[in-house]
Every structure is written in structure tokens, then in C-alpha cells.
């Protein structure tokens, strides 16, 4: 794959607007549908709309939200819910560490990052990881903000719409809406597949994820990330070292 040329939107404001534009396309359609599915799921659980909105509001990232609702529905203890969600969402730690150097700049106050990190989730993360390195430093954070804030607003709206839909929508359609999300994530990463170093980590993760889930549903992601990531890291490092040695001997 050819490396993309640098982009410049001209100003922080235009970077923000272009982030909005990129979000109001396929990401908005897919996440909107997903969150309609989530709203429907919450109303089937018998909870109120406020619970659904609070979940999308302060715990935005669909896998943890579904787990919270499912566990609550089966009367899991508070500790069990917190532990399960912590393990499902542990990916957010490496994701945030990896994203931050691409969106940070010298002028934005630190507190802004501690607020905006609430909006780091797969869709916005993948978009920012693709676009932000190409942008001038001061336009990166506005682009990310412009992408995720409207996207999150659409998710809030869709949660409310979906909450009132189950009576109208047949169960199969709800399934289809919920299925959109993992399939979309999968295709986003398949599209980025040619980026150096990623295929090994992605393939190992995809294989280890379900396998370790069969062994230990609670710890499966942590194990997948550590084992799959470490093996992929060693393979990538060996390849780069091999290349460097080749260049030196030539």
C-alpha cells in the first residue's frame, strides 16, 4: 500500500468540521443502527430509558455496555459487573496509550485530554489513527473531537429511538442491528490490513480471542492481548532487525 500524503485542513476549526464530515457517513449509519439495537436490548431487559441513556452517555463503547446490561439482567453482583466490564474494556488502556501521541499538542490543556478520553472507542480511534498522523499537529485534536462528539450524539439519539422500537421491530431485525457493529469493526481492520506490523497481531488476536474465551470467559481478552500482542511484537521486531542487517551488509 502506498503511504498517504500529508493533509492540511487550513485551521483548527476546519479540522473540526472535517472530523464531523467524516463521522457523518458510514460511521454514523453503523453506530446509529448499533445503538438502536442497544436501546432495544435495554428496554427488553425491563430497565428505563434513563438507564440506557446513562450507559451510552458515560460508558460509551458497545461491548462493555452490552455486558453491563446482560449481567444486570441475570442479577450479577456489583463486583462481578465491575470486574467483567473492566476486563472487557481493558483494551482501552493500550488503545489510549497508542492514540495519544497522534492527537496531543502543546497548547491544549491536559484536562481536555482527561475529558475527551471518554470518547475513545473503536470507530473514532481507527479514524484518528488513520487521519491524525497525516495532519499538522495543532489540527489533530480538533479532528478527533469533531469526529467523536457528533458520533456520540448520534449514539445517544439512537439509543432513545431504539428503546421505543422493540414493540415495532421483529427480533431478527434487532439481531441484524447488533450484528452490524462487530462486522463493521472487522471490515475497518481488514481495510487497514496492509499497514506494517498489524496483520500478525490482528490474526493472532482473532484466533486467540474465541479460543481463550472457551477456556476462561473472564480473562480471555487480557490473555489474548498479552500473548497475541507479544508474539506479534517479536515477529515484527525480528523482521525489522533482519531488514536493517540486510541493508548494512549490502
Amino acid at each position: 500500500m502506498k503511504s498517504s500524503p500529508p493533509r492540511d485542513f487550513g485551521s483548527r476549526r476546519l479540522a473540526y468540521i472535517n472530523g464531523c464530515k467524516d463521522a457523518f457517513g458510514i460511521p454514523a449509519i453503523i453506530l446509529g443502527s448499533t445503538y438502536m439495537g442497544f436501546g432495544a436490548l435495554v428496554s427488553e431487559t425491563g430497565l428505563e430509558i434513563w438507564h440506557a441513556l446513562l450507559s451510552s452517555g458515560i460508558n460509551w463503547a458497545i461491548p462493555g455496555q452490552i455486558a453491563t446490561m446482560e449481567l444486570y439482567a441475570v442479577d450479577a453482583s456489583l463486583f462481578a459487573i465491575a470486574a467483567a466490564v473492566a476486563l472487557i474494556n481493558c483494551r482501552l488502556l493500550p488503545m489510549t496509550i497508542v492514540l495519544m501521541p497522534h492527537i496531543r499538542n502543546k497548547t491544549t490543556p491536559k484536562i481536555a485530554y482527561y475529558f475527551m478520553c471518554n470518547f475513545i472507542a473503536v470507530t473514532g480511534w481507527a479514524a484518528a489513527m488513520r487521519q491524525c498522523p497525516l495532519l499538522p499537529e495543532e489540527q489533530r485534536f480538533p479532528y478527533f473531537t469533531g469526529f467523536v462528539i457528533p458520533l456520540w450524539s448520534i449514539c445517544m439519539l439512537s439509543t432513545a429511538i431504539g428503546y421505543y422500537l422493540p414493540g415495532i421491530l421483529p427480533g431478527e431485525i434487532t439481531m441484524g442491528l447488533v450484528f452490524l457493529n462487530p462486522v463493521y469493526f472487522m471490515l475497518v481492520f481488514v481495510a487497514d490490513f496492509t499497514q506494517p506490523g498489524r496483520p500478525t497481531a490482528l490474526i493472532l488476536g482473532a484466533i486467540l480471542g474465541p479460543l481463550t474465551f472457551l477456556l476462561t470467559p473472564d480473562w480471555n481478552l487480557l490473555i489474548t492481548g498479552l500473548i497475541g500482542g507479544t508474539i506479534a511484537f517479536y515477529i515484527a521486531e525480528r523482521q525489522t532487525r533482519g531488514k536493517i542487517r540486510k541493508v548494512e551488509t549490502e
Partner: protein
Amino acid sequence: MIEISSNFLAPEFLAPLAALAAAAAVTYFWRALGVAVSGKVDKDSALFRWVTCVAYALLAGLISRMILLPIGPLADLSIEQRAGATVISLAVFFLTRKNLLIGVASGAIALVLMAKLGPL
């Protein structure tokens, strides 16, 4: 359209709030820790490259688990149905020169049809 809860102090309303707050707190912990740690990790270091690999492995593991062994409404379908819809989605995606929308939509439509028609 939105009904105001008859009683915001009722246990049916408050008990889920505790669960939601706990879930949100642990989620925020990871994100905030990520922001705090990121300032101390050099972007060009081996440690950073390792964290990147871990992030991608975690994401792929989560997505493939969500498709193959889901929790939630998708669990009512068979693994063949979900895997079949995934393969259809991937095939259409590549046939349409990586058109995300068509790829995702065909996977979801295939799943809905399979769910409606029952096991193949």
C-alpha cells in the same frame, strides 16, 4: 414520548444506577490511565511498539469473539449462521473493492435472513 419515571427514588430505578456507575468508573479508569501513562512512553520506543501490538491483538480478539461467541441477542443464533454471515460480508467487501457500507449491510441482511429462515 419519554415518560418521566414515577419515582426516581424507587429501588427499580436506583439499583441499576449502581451497576451503571461501577461499569462507567472502571471504563474511565482505563482511559484516564492511558492518558496519564502515554506522556511517559516514548513513541519511538520498543515498549510503545509492543503496546501497539497488544492493542491490535486485543481489538481483533474482541471482534472475533463478538462474532463467533457473542453475549446478548446474537447468542440465540447458531455459530454457523453467524460465521456464514461474516464470510458473506467479507466476500462482498472484497468483491465491491472494499466498499464498507455494502460489505457490512450484506452481512447484516444475510444474518437477518438466516435468522428468519431458521437453520440451513
